[in-house]
């Protein structure tokens, strides 16, 4: 089956994302723009993944469960799972490792946890833009132990990309690296490339995507396709 995938979409939980980005609205928009595989990846938090899973099941769209972790080096790293419980476990570890700095909604924006009907269940208390306690190397180990894919995000960006933070692309067991639509293939060196939207607002969903010809959307199939 041919999957047209956008694996980097933020929900309203990310303080920098538009409040309209509830799982329900995201899924409907993704289907409208021709995607048939998506992942939700909020900053350092997985609290909106349970609602996302229910909406994807209801609407019949293939999905992965993600998170965009800020490493100790302040590089953004996309972590993707095909099992919700594994994603929630990493989410709990990463959120727990964030410093005890609380969000100030008037300055940074709200961090609402929502259900599939777009009702607000509560708010993530810690400021999600802080750096987690995980270095890139430690995160590689955690994600692989939990059965996920680890992909440095937007490596060609000047802000929070792994190259802008470290000065180089380290030799780690990354499953791929993510480029923005303008990124050049050679910046990825020997790693497979994925492109995603990094949508923080509805109109950006699907503005970049990656196609995979695989039997079903699993971490194992994706890894095999990436390195084929």
């Amino acid at each position, binding site marked *: 089956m041919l999957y047209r995938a956008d694996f980097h979409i933020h929900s309203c939980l990310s303080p920098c994302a538009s409040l309209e980005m509830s799982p329900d609205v995201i899924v409907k928009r993704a289907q409208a723009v021709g995607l048939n595989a998506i992942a939700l990846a909020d900053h350092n938090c997985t609290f909106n993944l349970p609602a996302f899973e229910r909406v994807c099941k209801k609407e019949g769209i293939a999905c992965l469960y993600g998170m965009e972790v800020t490493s100790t*080096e302040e590089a953004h790293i996309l972590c993707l799972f095909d099992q919700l419980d594994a994603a929630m476990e990493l989410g709990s570890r990463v959120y727990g490792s964030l410093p005890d700095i609380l969000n100030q909604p008037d300055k940074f924006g709200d961090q609402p946890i929502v259900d599939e009907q777009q009702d607000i269940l509560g708010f993530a208390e810690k400021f999600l833009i802080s750096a987690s306690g995980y270095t890139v*190397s430690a995160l590689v180990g955690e994600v692989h132990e939990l059965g996920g894919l680890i992909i440095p995000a937007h490596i060609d960006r000047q802000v929070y990309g792994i*190259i802008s*933070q*470290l*000065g*180089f692309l*380290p030799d780690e067991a990354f499953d791929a690296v993510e480029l923005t639509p303008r990124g050049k293939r050679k910046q990825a060196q020997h790693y497979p490339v994925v492109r995603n939207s990094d949508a923080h607002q509805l109109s950006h969903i699907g503005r970049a995507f990656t196609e995979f010809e695989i039997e079903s959307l699993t971490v194992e199939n994706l890894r095999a396709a990436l390195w084929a």
Partner: protein
Amino acid sequence: MKISELETLDDFTCLQDEYEDAEISAGYTSDLLSDVMANAEDGSVLITIQAHKNTVAVSSLAGVSAIIICNNRPASDDMLAAAEKEGIAVFQTARNQFQTSALIARYLGE
């Protein structure tokens, strides 16, 4: 100022002492490693809070001979192992980057 003199400073702990002693010619203060790589001079001491093995990789490429970790941030074991391999001295201090820079600048006559 020599690298070994850093060991004698108040509040400084040497975390990695397998290095060849040499004169420190300059200092560079930054927590953005791509900036360190682009702008740190050969023979500098790097003042930073980035305490992980990639700091050592960048220091090695930039010619940084000693790293001072501020705010008593813990250094990971793989950082210290990498520093030992590269012969880069690593120190830790409770001082912040501003205070450390001011202190080192006095020794370097800047």
